[in-house]
């Protein structure tokens, strides 16, 4: 407050006083906006919380003591049991029920060597993610050049490509998966199609933004020596955007691992389905095994992708928004 006192000194000229008054007005208005915004946010938040609580099956304060119960229920018979569940080893508690039938799901490669069920499921989920990222990236790659303003001159072509990418991106994955589940029956193919279609939109958008920020000098050079459109794109643009494309591909792969897990939980196979079933049936050792496996896989995928992106594009991998 001492600063204000200094400013109020009589030495202030009339012009200075005007500036001073305006500054105070501005500050007051700003404060008003901030307080108004906070009050609005608070009201919206409490209204939303009340609404959510009203429409929930269990009420928050009624259920709160039991949330911990669920975690307590997750405690397995002994702490080796999740390991047995993870590697499909027979359990000493096996009573013929689904709960302890760990060796059931073994996938035998030869007579003696098997892949544990959950590892196989995890590989399935990873394959769904990687394959659909590959398919999505291929189509995204082909489409992005038609959406980029510096490569495609036709406004209409650009407009339609961009709208197409937008619609494909915003269309809920779950609807595509559900639609193809109806046609193909249960299995991973609907998830692959759904994730691929979404990836086309998402990667297409990132790709064309990269292309629009590309350096046009190589392209100009090629144009000067009479290269056609495909040659200009392939030799002028693609080499400089490829590292960024790869980096976005890897990022997308990370997201798609999560997306395919979620789609798995609604019936499209993979580890998500196993997780939903084991949580729903309160199979504690199996749940712990799957959560652990999923956690490790996601961490590993994230770390690997971050490392590779760092190698591909250097610091840019961690500072998006550059090249704007």
């Amino acid at each position, binding site marked *: 407050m001492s600063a204000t006192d200094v400013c109020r000194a009589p030495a202030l000229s009339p012009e200075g006083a005007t500036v001073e008054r305006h500054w105070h007005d501005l500050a007051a208005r700003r404060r008003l906006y901030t307080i108004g915004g906070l009050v609005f946010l608070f009201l919206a938040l409490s209204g939303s919380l009340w609404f959510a609580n009203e429409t*929930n099956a269990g009420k928050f304060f009624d259920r709160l003591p039991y949330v911990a119960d669920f975690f307590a229920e997750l405690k397995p018979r002994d702490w080796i049991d999740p390991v047995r569940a993870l590697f499909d080893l027979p359990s000493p508690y096996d009573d013929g029920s689904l709960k302890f039938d760990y060796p059931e799901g073994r996938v035998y490669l030869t007579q003696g060597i098997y892949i544990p069920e959950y590892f196989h499921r995890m590989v399935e989920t990873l394959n769904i993610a990687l394959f659909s990222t590959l398919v999505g990236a291929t189509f995204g790659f082909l489409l992005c050049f038609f959406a980029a303003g510096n490569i495609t001159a036709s406004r209409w072509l650009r407009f339609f490509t961009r709208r197409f990418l937008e619609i494909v991106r915003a269309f809920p994955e779950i609807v595509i998966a559900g639609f193809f589940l109806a046609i193909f029956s249960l299995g991973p193919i609907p998830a692959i199609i759904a994730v691929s279609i979404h990836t086309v939109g998402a990667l297409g958008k990132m790709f064309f933004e990269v292309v629009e920020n590309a350096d046009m000098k190589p392209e100009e050079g090629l144009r000067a020596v009479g290269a056609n459109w495909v040659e200009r794109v392939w030799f002028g643009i693609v080499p400089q955007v490829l590292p960024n494309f790869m980096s976005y591909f890897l990022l997308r792969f990370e997201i798609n691992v999560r997306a395919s897990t979620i789609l798995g939980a609604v019936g499209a196979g993979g580890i998500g389905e196993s997780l939903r079933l084991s949580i729903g049936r309160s199979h504690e050792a199996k749940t712990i095994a799957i959560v652990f496996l999923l956690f490790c896989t996601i961490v590993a995928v994230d770390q690997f992708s971050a490392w590779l992106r760092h190698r591909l594009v250097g610091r840019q991998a961690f500072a998006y928004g550059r090249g704007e």
Partner: protein
Amino acid sequence: MNPDAVNDIAARHPDAFRRSLWKRYATPIGILLCILYTFYCSWFFSVASVLEKANWNLAGAYLADWVSYEIRPDIEFKDNHLTIDYSRFSKLGSNPNPDWVAKQMAVIERQVEAAPAPAIATNKSSQDSFMAPGAPTAENPAVPLGQSPPAVPETVRENAVMAATVTLGNGQIAVTPNLVTVTRGAESVFFDIAKGSSVTPRTPLPDWIEQRRPGSTAYVSFGFLGRAEVQNDEVVAWRRFFGWANFVFDTNSPFWGKPFSEVASLIVSGARIDPSRSNAALAWDNILNNAEWQHGDVWLKLLQTIVMAFVGTVLASIVAFPLAFLAARNVTPSRLANQVTKRFFDFLRSVDMLIWALFFTRGFGPGPLAGMSAIFFTDTGTLGKLYSEALENIDDKQREGIRSVGATPAMVQRYGVLPQVLPVFLSQSLYFWESNTRSATIIGAVGAGGIGLKLWEAMRTNTNWANVFYMVLLILLVVFVFDNISSYFRRKLMGSAGNDERRVSARPPAAQIA
């Protein structure tokens, strides 16, 4: 340019002209790997056999269902006449008599065995399922067939249908008790019906009619306009109409089937239909409780989805905010505190949103609380990580300046750090709010509340694709609106910070761009 000059250039830039084998063949190798991987995946997922087994006809019909609906007259053969029924909850109301089904009536005499089964009163739709109105429920069970009164044979004279003609665009199905004529364009096929035993075409069948065995049911296709089955005891026709049937009022509503002007005048100045409330209130109630579209419930679930994303993101931002200061190296000097907080963020982020959603659905029961908590937990991790990264990238000069005039540590954070990072924080939170609106739809399907579950249920019935499309359009609209709100605010926020030379990256990490 002479050869010497070329050689000279080649000698000066060996890396451009004599590239390593790997560099030269990287593209073909990459493409080859991708192709090999594609083969591996098609083996792994047995793509070929799945595609072969797929029911592609169904795909066309389901897609058509998104924007159209079918009406199904059932023409049953009796001894010397026909009866025409419509499915019990036909979109044409309780007493359909469409003009595309022409009937020829005559008075006949026949023996009847029993009184007709009592009609089942239709009740108001149930709120949370796609069950048709009046479907058998606990309160209103369907009347079992065996309960009709004992049969007393008697002779009645009545006006009965002798012949019926169903028109489907350029196609026609003319039905008499023992002869069915199917016409599509210029082609006609006659079927002799031996009631209860066989269906026999008089001429070889064209490719739009399929009969799997001689004498069995014939399947007639009229393309998008509809299809029909000629069976040995009835003819079933499906005529397809473009559009969404009964979108505003269902067939139980007094406003059903009335043109817009009439509905408007009823609402504005008509006499009360229901004496206890105004026509406007009645119309609104009828719209909300539309049995086929369930607008009220769909909107409620959509609001839940929006609320889940909003509350989850706001709470996550509030919790992540102080923790981020703890996690930032340059703000909290303790290595231990940094590492613990950061690993905590990683943990929250890496336990997938799905796992959190399944956990909390068990804990709180199905509903938005579960979805909200799942979003809150995941995003506390993600936002915390992003916030702490933004904090670690700040400009130190401002902090030093504030510190040099003797400010307390809290004041240093408030005036030296916060002004730099607040726009970034807000912009990232806004971005996540928008992206969570999308993810909230998906986790809803595992029971975490919102429109996801409703969407999923509608899809699993395989008969409500128009409802699915309706919900998809609503979701797209919401995503579009929030997209624009969020990017408007983000532009405003970043616009003011855009002048800083050393500005912290404001764009959300692409990792989260969904």
